[in-house]
Every structure is written in structure tokens, then in C-alpha cells.
């Protein structure tokens, strides 16, 4: 290629540098404003469009290495005169401020999209509750003794109009070492480090200040990455128009109720924040005939199953409580007391429970249902 000799043009390069600093400042401002993905898109497009043009310009007036040096060190002499010193200070200042900004930007990025609802909207309390659930497996027999399907699931379905085939609290039969099984009612674990919240592209699912992980079905785009991310299989998708009774269809949508269910969005157990606010216990606890489920506040260190009141920390410690898949680091808010229904007279070798039923199909004829 033909090399073109042109007059030193460090002034022009200084112009570019100033332009670059201005652009960086604009980007930082926009980042703070919260429009990050847009900025990246615009930035990428700008860089890609301008790079060839700049390159073309540069090729016509490509400064030699010597000229680059003159930009930093006056006249290409490696002695630091006053102007060069000022330039160096300037570069150092830009560099320093950028390095100062990076941690702030990282912090901004980490909390972005997880902004909890406006505190003004929440009922005034002395302190923020930290809801928790303790499930005493010693008292769970999968409702074998009363000859009904698991009543926690049934009550949840009826209370939440949960579309078929969703079981927001689902009873799983875990095999015990040796012989027999135990029943493990499994609601959403309401993780304190929720993988589903971490992967959501639009912030439709978020950790509420009081602990529950909620979903805004008006924002959810239905990409289902949260379902891939959840290690507890606790997220459910509205594959079709879900069957729900007419009263659910008429309700005003509320993300704490998840009613009415919306096609193409994800749903799950929400820890009944509306119920506890009004002073009642979640449906599953009310439905449990053996009072195996406790609901409480980690902050106040109290929990109740509707009959007894226990100190959360004492109760967990005294009974060797565990959490599901503790090794994953999700830090669930749901604790289990090991057992296999022995307190309600179940033998571990009596396996199986009756199938769950959803009553909605008879109310909403012609609606779609699907299998898990």
C-alpha cells in the first residue's frame, strides 16, 4: 500500500480523544439512568459503523510511531516538560476516574432490575418481615391416614385457582436409605440466592423485600430460562389458555395473587404474601390435617402451624433441620425437619398417595389442559 506522508496531526488526535471522553461520559450517564441494554446496542452499532470510517481517515493520515509519542511527550523528546506533565496528569485523571467508576457501575448493574416495589406501597411496619416455612416431615403421611389426596396441594389449588396441572406445593415421595419412603411437600423454596431471579432477562421475577420470590406475569416474556435455572422444578408455564373458574377471570390482576393466570407466562408458589398480611396462614398450612407446616418470620424468630408457636432457631436446631440441595448455595427459606410421618403413625413402607384433582375443567369448559 502507498504510504502517505502528511504533516504531524496530533491536534486532530487530541480532538478524537476529547470526543472519546465525551462519549464515555455520555455512556456512563445513560448507564446510571438504567437504559443499559439500549446503550450497548447503540454503542456497538456506533463503533461498528464508525470504525471503518475512522480507519479510512486514519489510513490517509496515519501518524507514525514518532507522532504518537509526540502526543504524550512533547516533540518526541523523552523529557517531561510542563505541557507533557499536564497531559500526563490529564490522562491519569481520566484513568483514575474510570477505575473509580467501574465498581460503582458493577454495583449498579448487580442491583438493576431487582428494585423492590416502592416502600411507600408497602404497609408500614417496624421492621421488614423475613418469611420462612418449616415443614415437619414427622407429621406428613401424604394424607394416607385420612384417605384423601395431599390436602396442602388441594387447598393451594382451590385457594389460588391454580391451573391444571400445576402443583405449586407438590408432594414428592423420596426413597429412604434401606426400605420405605418419606413424603416431602415441596413449595417454591423462596431462595435467598434465587437462580431464577438471576437469569430473568426482564426482571419479571424478583425477590420481594420480605423474602418471597414473585413473578410479574404482565412483564414475563415467556422465555422459560427461569424454569431451566430452577433446581427444584418449582416453576410452571401456562402452555395454553389455562382453565380457571369465571371468578378468577373477572379479578383484577395482582402479581401477589397471580390471578387471573395469563397464557405464555410462568407461575409458581408465592408464599401467600396477601394472606399473611391480612393475618391468616397460607392455604397449604390451613389445609394440612396434621399441622405439619409452620409459617413464620426469621426476623422475629417465631413460627406457627396454627396451633403451636415455636421459636424458629430453637425448633430448627433441636430437630436437625435441613434444606433441599443445600450444596447449591441457593439458601432456601424453606426448612425441613427429617421424618417419615412417624408422629401420625405412618410406617415408611406404606407407599403412595392419591392423585391430585383440579376442579376447574368443569367450570371452564373447552379450555386447554396439558400434562406436566
Amino acid at each position, binding site marked *: 500500500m502507498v504510504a502517505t506522508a502528511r504533516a504531524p496531526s496530533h491536534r486532530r488526535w487530541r480532538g478524537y480523544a476529547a470526543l472519546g471522553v465525551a462519549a464515555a461520559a455520555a455512556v456512563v450517564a445513560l448507564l446510571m439512568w438504567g437504559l443499559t441494554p439500549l446503550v450497548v446496542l447503540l454503542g*456497538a*452499532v456506533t463503533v461498528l459503523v464508525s470504525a*471503518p470510517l475512522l480507519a*479510512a481517515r*486514519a489510513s490517509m493520515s496515519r501518524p507514525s510511531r514518532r507522532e504518537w509519542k509526540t502526543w504524550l511527550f512533547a516533540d518526541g523528546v523523552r523529557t517531561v516538560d510542563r505541557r507533557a506533565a499536564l497531559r500526563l496528569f490529564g490522562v491519569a485523571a481520566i484513568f483514575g476516574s474510570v477505575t473509580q467508576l467501574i465498581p460503582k457501575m458493577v454495583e449498579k448493574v448487580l442491583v438493576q432490575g431487582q428494585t423492590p416495589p416502592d416502600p411507600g406501597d408497602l404497609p408500614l411496619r417496624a421492621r421488614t418481615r423475613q418469611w420462612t416455612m418449616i415443614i415437619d416431615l414427622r407429621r406428613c403421611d401424604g394424607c394416607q391416614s385420612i384417605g384423601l389426596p395431599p390436602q396442602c396441594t388441594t387447598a393451594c389449588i382451590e385457594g389460588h385457582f391454580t391451573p391444571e396441572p400445576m402443583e405449586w406445593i407438590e408432594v*414428592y415421595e423420596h426413597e429412604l436409605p434401606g426400605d420405605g419412603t418419606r413424603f416431602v411437600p415441596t413449595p417454591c423454596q423462596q431462595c435467598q440466592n434465587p*437462580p431464577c431471579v438471576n437469569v430473568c432477562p426482564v426482571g419479571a421475577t424478583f425477590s420481594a423485600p420480605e423474602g418471597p420470590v414473585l413473578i410479574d406475569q404482565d412483564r414475563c416474556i415467556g422465555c422459560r430460562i427461569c424454569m431451566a435455572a430452577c433446581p427444584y422444578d418449582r416453576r410452571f408455564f401456562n402452555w*395454553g*389458555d389455562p382453565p380457571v373458574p369465571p371468578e378468577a377471570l373477572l379479578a383484577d390482576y395482582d402479581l401477589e395473587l397471580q390471578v387471573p393466570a395469563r397464557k*405464555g407466562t410462568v407461575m409458581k408458589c408465592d408464599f401467600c404474601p396477601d394472606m399473611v398480611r391480612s393475618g391468616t396462614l397460607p392455604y397449604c398450612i390451613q389445609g394440612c390435617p396434621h399441622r405439619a407446616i409452620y409459617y413464620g418470620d426469621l426476623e422475629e424468630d417465631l413460627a406457627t402451624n396454627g396451633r403451636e408457636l415455636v421459636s424458629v432457631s430453637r425448633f430448627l436446631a433441636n430437630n436437625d433441620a435441613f434444606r433441599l440441595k443445600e450444596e447449591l448455595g441457593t439458601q432456601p427459606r424453606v426448612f425441613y425437619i427429617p421424618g417419615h410421618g412417624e408422629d401420625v403413625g405412618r410406617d415408611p413402607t406404606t407407599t403412595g398417595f392419591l392423585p391430585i384433582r383440579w376442579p376447574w375443567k368443569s367450570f371452564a369448559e373447552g379450555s386447554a389442559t396439558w400434562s406436566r
Partner: protein
Amino acid sequence: MSPWQKRLEEATLEPARTTTRDYYLVVGVLLAVIAWALFAYFVQLRDGLVVTGMRDRISWGLYITMFVFFIGISHAGTLISAILRVANATWRTPVTRMAEFITAVALMTGALFVIVDLGRPDRFLNVLIHGRWQSPIVWDVVAVTTYLTASLLYLYLPMIPDLAFFRDRLTGKVPRWKSGLYRILAINWRGTDTQKRQLHSSIAIMMILIIPIAVSVHTVVSWIFAMTLREAWNSAIFGFFFVAGAIFSGIATLIIMMALLRRVYRLEEFITVKHFQYLGFLMAAMAGVMLYANISEYVTAGFKLEEGAEFIFRQLFVAEFAPYFWFYLIAGLIVPIVLLFIPRMRTVGGIVFAAVLVDLAMWVERYFIVVTGLRAPLLPYEPANYAPTWVEWSITAGGFAFFALLVTVFVKIFPIMAVFEMVEEQEEQAAERLAIASESALPGEAIT
């Protein structure tokens, strides 16, 4: 002008000048497939994703497979045009244009499938309005759109002189919209020294820029999987593995496309057996890389066999997915290497056969990576099964037809080979030969 250059120019002008009945036939068939796919998508929009085979436990299927596969295919252009350009491998020049077509078109197809997979495509813009940096999906949107912008630019820049060539030679001989298009897109290219210099440096910048972009794209595609708490996807090698697979399947697609276009538009003189052999060797080398990645992946997990790993190995190696897995491993990775080892098999037919095997295997690989990862039960329940429905198959077929249609139409409108660059390189080589000749000549003797 040498006779070679004349033939080259004629061969490149030919597709834009004449249209055969077969062309309309191909376009018609492809449009019919796309129309059928659109009907299937309409059904899906009306009834929801319930019309697919996906359910809560296996919640991704063919659509995500197609997304991963097509974004992978798009790495053909980057490899041929950017990496080989950086390596100064001049043999690649006649096939660059085709590779860059594939890149742009495959990206568009792949990106479409993300939308197709959404439960609420009407809210897709939420990704921009409410986008969160932490989400791998947002990384993907950013990476794929950046890559699409870059590859369109990179397709366009080297094409400017060829578009000017079309403008100069075809005005008056083709419909007015076409010559108008060439005039606008050629942005007043006159072939002056300044223009050439600007073009060369712009291309040089883009070729460096596009390599990290391409690598990042398939890395973040893999991170959609690797960022979840699933045993089968919990792998640090996933990004590299996906990028290698992307280049691998990209080369295979390019070989198939080259063979088709060469045959249809009679480009035998310019796209020779040598090109197939070189690309075939590259493909075999990538097969080796893939084999190595697979061994690394499966030996480290399979030796320890942590909880949950046994199920994954069983379904992949001996049970439900074993036919897919062994097809991928043997027909997709080992057979192509063996074929390229046998000199007698290094014909166009033999290499295209290997490429078809590779593409099939890579598609199957994307499929079983998605499905086996989701199928492993997380709690004590019976593993779910996934069988795609007619809707999914139709839209998948529509995706392939869309890809083929775009390539067909692109090739009809735009120069199929990089004439400008080929001629330039030919001249350079001639000059070099002249220089060598002059060096070996007797001192004092002048060469004219």
C-alpha cells in the same frame, strides 16, 4: 484484461442476468414451505405453546436447537473471511462471499427462532425496556445483534467494488429497481487509489473486530445453558465447546453451499476441488478439536460420577439418546476425519458427503444437549419425555426454507464471488512472479 478475468466476470454476472425456470421452481417450493410454517406459527400464537411437545419439565426443544444450530452456522463467514484473511490464506478469496452470505442469513434465521420460542412474543421489546445485565438472555440479544450488524457490514464492505462492477455492467440489462439498488449500494465507487486505500483499511479493521465478536456470540449462547444449575450443562468448557462446534458446522454448511452453487451456476473454474479439500482438511481438524472437547467433558464428569451424572450418562450412552449420541460421535466426528485421510475420498462428492454428515450430527448434538440437560429429573419424579409436534416440525422446516430462500435470492441479486479481490490478488501474484523472474534474470538485463 486477461481471458481468465473475463470468464470470472461473466460467471459472476450470469446469475443476476438470466433467470431459469428452475429458479422460480425452487423459490416457489421454499415459499410454500414457509407459508406452511407461518400457518403453524399462527396456530401456535392462537393456542399458545401447548401445541408444541414442550412441557414444564422439558421446557425447551426444537426451537432452541434451531437457534443454537443456526447461530453456529453463522461462524462460517467469520472463519473463512476473517480468520483466514488474517492468516493471509489467499486461496479462500473465491469462497468468501458465499461464506459471508451464510453468516448474515444464518444469523437472521437463528434470531427468529428465539422469538418463535417465546411464550409472549408480543412482549419481546421488554428485553430492551426492562433488560437486566445479569441475564444470559440479554447477553445473547446484545451479542447476536452486534454480530449481525458487524457481519452485514463485513459482507457489504468488500462487496462495494463488485456492486459498482454490477452497476457498470448491468444498468439497462436488468430491471430498473435492481440497477438502482446497485447504484445506491455502490456509493459512487470509482476505484480511485484513495477509495481503495479507505476500503482496504476498513476491511482490515472489521476483520479484526469481527473475530472476538464471533467468539463471544457462541460463548454466550452456551452460557444460556451453563448458567443454570443443571448437572449436564455445568461445565466450564461449554463456551469453547460451542464455539468449536459452531465453526465446525459452519465449514460443513459452507462446503454444501459451495457444491450447490458451483453446480447451479457453473463456477467449476473458480471454485475448484482444491477449495473443497482445504475446507475439508479444516473441517477434519475441527472434528479433532470437537473429539478432544468431548473427551475432556465426559471423562472429567464420568470418572467421578457425582450424583445425577449417572442418569445423564445412561440416557446419553446406552438408553434413550444413545442412537443420537453415537451417530454424532461416529458419523459426525470420526467418519469425516477418516474420509479426509483417504486420498481417494478427497473428491468433491466425498467431501460434501462428509459435510452432510457433520451438519446432521451437529444438529443432532444441539438437540440432545438441550433435551438431555432438561430431562434429568431434579426431584424424585419420572423423567419426562419430549416429542416435537407437527407445529414444531413445520416451523423447523420453515426455518431451513427461510435460510435457503434468503441464500437463493441473495445470490440472484448480489455478486456471488469477490471479483474485485480475486482480480487484485491475481495481479499481485503476477507481479510477484515478475519480481522473482527479474531477480533470477542476468544483471543489467531489463524486464518489461
